[in-house]
């Protein structure tokens, strides 16, 4: 047993095997490397960057170093003393000279609306002031006499912050540093997340209800016919997303084809044309159509592997056709149902273009808000935090699927 196995020429067998396998391994690594590099730079790195941006907060620490240093020892109970005001004056003047004052003001303004003008105004004046500064600041803007202003600056001092995530769930720190809900009028994100979830669920369920019979047909028809049907299912993939969304507008708008038809048939009165698009309803309809193939394909690939003899066996054992279908066929399609629902739900939850085009007011989803913060308000930190929450949600779904069905049973085609 202890005797070491060797090759014919006396080399230890393990070493011989390792060197024989080495070239193979190197080749495998080299083959995978390009894909890995591509995925790293196009997927993993940007996501990591985004997640970092959602918590990073360098601006205040960088451009108000003196103030940050003084506030470190501030207890937050009283308005800070002259020392802090002197530091503030120095920082504001310096920031104004380097033209960074605008960014600082914007950052503070995200946190406490109204601070922008306080900062820029004070910075303009501070250049002309001589010490002592406290009186002059308090004269210039009464906000300097409020604890909230100083608390905001102190809260934004650390270079890593959770404020973006709090803001993304309609929370903020109050003066005492406790997490509280933002004011009634500012609560939008939680509702938006809920609505996004709800609409995604509706889209997923609609896709399942529409997709299941199609997939069943595809799987049970003879190949000749099923090929044709498959082309019809895939047809949407060959048409531009924009074109399809626009054609939904043509179909569903108040003066559109569907309404015209219903008026013509007499189902509704000309005066009561139904608003079918530019709202949540229209978004759900258009998204269901666009995402349907992602439901049909995994379902089809699973159903294709279920032998027709299962149903026949169940029938021969005494089960009515419907019972056989429900007890035998449907349970065997579950991996496909799971994969299809997961795929559609994940795509739906981050969907952007369709809600943007046909969503109107109440059809907007979370990704539209992310885009807004990326492009309009330029609050990238908040956009990144919203995206981060979305990402965590998706990962949790995968985890759940893995628990319930097993990720190795995921069939996508």
């Amino acid at each position, binding site marked *: 047993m202890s005797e070491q196995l060797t090759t014919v020429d006396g080399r230890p067998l393990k070493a011989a095997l390792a060197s024989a396998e080495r070239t193979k391994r190197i080749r495998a690594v080299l083959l995978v490397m390009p894909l890995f590099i591509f995925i790293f730079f196009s997927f993993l790195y940007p996501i990591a960057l985004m997640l970092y941006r959602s918590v990073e907060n360098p601006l205040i620490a960088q451009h108000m170093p003196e103030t940050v240093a003084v506030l470190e020892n501030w207890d937050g109970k009283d308005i800070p003393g002259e020392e802090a005001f002197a530091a503030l004056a120095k920082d504001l003047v310096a920031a104004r000279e380097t033209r960074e004052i605008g960014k600082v003001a914007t950052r503070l303004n995200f946190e406490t609306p109204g601070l922008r003008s306080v900062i820029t105004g004070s910075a303009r004046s501070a250049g002309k002031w001589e010490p002592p500064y406290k009186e002059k600041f308090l004269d210039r803007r009464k906000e300097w006499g409020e604890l909230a202003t100083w608390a905001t600056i102190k809260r934004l001092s650390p270079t890593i912050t959770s404020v973006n995530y709090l803001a993304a769930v309609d929370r903020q720190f109050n003066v005492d540093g406790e997490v509280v809900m933002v004011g009634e009028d500012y609560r939008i994100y939680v509702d938006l997340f809920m609505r996004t979830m709800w609409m995604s669920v509706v889209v997923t369920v609609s896709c399942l209800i529409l997709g299941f019979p199609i997939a069943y047909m595809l799987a049970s028809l003879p190949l000749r016919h099923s090929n044709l049907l498959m082309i019809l299912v895939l047809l949407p993939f060959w048409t531009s997303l924009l074109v399809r969304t626009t054609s939904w507008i043509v179909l569903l708008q108040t003066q559109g084809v569907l309404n015209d038809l219903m008026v013509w048939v007499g189902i509704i009165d000309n005066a009561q044309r139904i608003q079918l698009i530019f709202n949540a309803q229209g978004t759900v309809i258009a998204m269901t159509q666009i995402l349907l193939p992602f439901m049909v394909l995994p379902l089809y690939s699973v159903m294709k592997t279920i*032998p027709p003899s299962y149903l*026949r066996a169940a*029938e*021969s*054992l*005494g*089960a009515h056709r419907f019972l*056989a279908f429900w007890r035998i066929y449907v*349970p*065997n399609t579950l991996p496909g149902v799971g994969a299809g629902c997961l795929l559609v739900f994940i795509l739906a939850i981050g969907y952007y273009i369709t809600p943007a085009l046909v969503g109107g007011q109440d059809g907007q989803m979370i990704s539209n808000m992310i885009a807004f913060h990326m492009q309009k308000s330029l609050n990238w930190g908040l956009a990144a935090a919203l995206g981060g929450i979305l990402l965590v949600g998706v990962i949790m779904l995968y985890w759940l699927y893995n628990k319930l069905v097993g990720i190795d049973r995921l069939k996508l085609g």
Partner: protein
Amino acid sequence: MIARKRAAHRVTGMAQGGMTENNDPLVRFESVQKSYDGETLVVKDLNLDVARGEFLTMLGPSGSGKTTCLMMLAGFEPATHGEIYLDNSPINNVPPHKRGIGMVFQNYALFPHMSVAENLAFPLEVRKTPKSEIEQRVTKALDMVQLGSFGNRRPAQLSGGQQQRVAVARALVFDPVLVLMDEPLGALDKQLREQMQYEIKHIHENLGVTVVYVTHDQSEALTMSNRVAVFNDGVIQQLAPPDELYERPQNAFVAQFIGENNTLVGDIKEADGDNVTVDVNGSIIKALNVNTGGVGSKTTLSIRPERVAVNPSNEGDYQNVFKATVEELIYLGDHIRTRASVCGDDEFVVKIANASALAAIKEGTEVTFGWKAEDCRALDA
């Protein structure tokens, strides 16, 4: 032609009946025809009675319509024409789940998402059998196929032979009067197949259930069945017990399909009662008249290899004695398969026992073959 054959089947069918008090056949196919595409008949005018308690096998080459017949009986394919009776009542319009026929599929068709016990319980559950009784019957059925401790396993965790047994148990657990099996052993290796043949046969004998069995393995058909229906081209060529099928084939197809067979083709010169004289490439052969068109018509003579005597010492016992040249010898252990040319046919095969003095013959040797007229059957051309 077909009409005559049908009459023949009826007679044999009835002769075999009477295994139980009730002499009515359990299953009756009456002029059943089947076409899938409206152009070709896959089953052509099938008439067949299956007696109660019988083990009947449908045997035939691929595509001869065996599965189609079974599917029509199970209710998964409608008969294009004709009527099928089960227990004297027509079942053409009875859906499969109401026929109460057990079925074993070639790929077993065990439900993968259910345990073995759940698979067996399924037919009882849909019949709303009480829970306690289900448990009892499932246990009994599992014991019957010697899988008592496997109830909690999934089908995927069983070997092919075990899955096969579960499939058989499931088809029997609800006490059907009739069980259909479509090549149930096709996926098993030879040894396991033979063991399962024995077990299925055993179960059949113990339960007294009627079995209609499909296979294209002739030895399987011969060892298991009470009667075998030989299918070809959508027609039953012969329906008979195994020994009769082998000893007294009714036509050239059956003679050729069952067991090893020598065929000689010739013209009938004379007919005298049960005997005919046939001219095969100039040789005159005396044969038994089984299924011919009379004097002047062509005929196929069928002679089993083991009925041919080589260099017989008492040539007088054989009506047919001919010189033959040994063409090829194949050593098969217990016997030597000898191919020779005789009467202008060089595919003539005889078996020479390894122990006999003849075992020493060489290729190219001239020998004498002798066979009796009664062992030489004159069949259709």
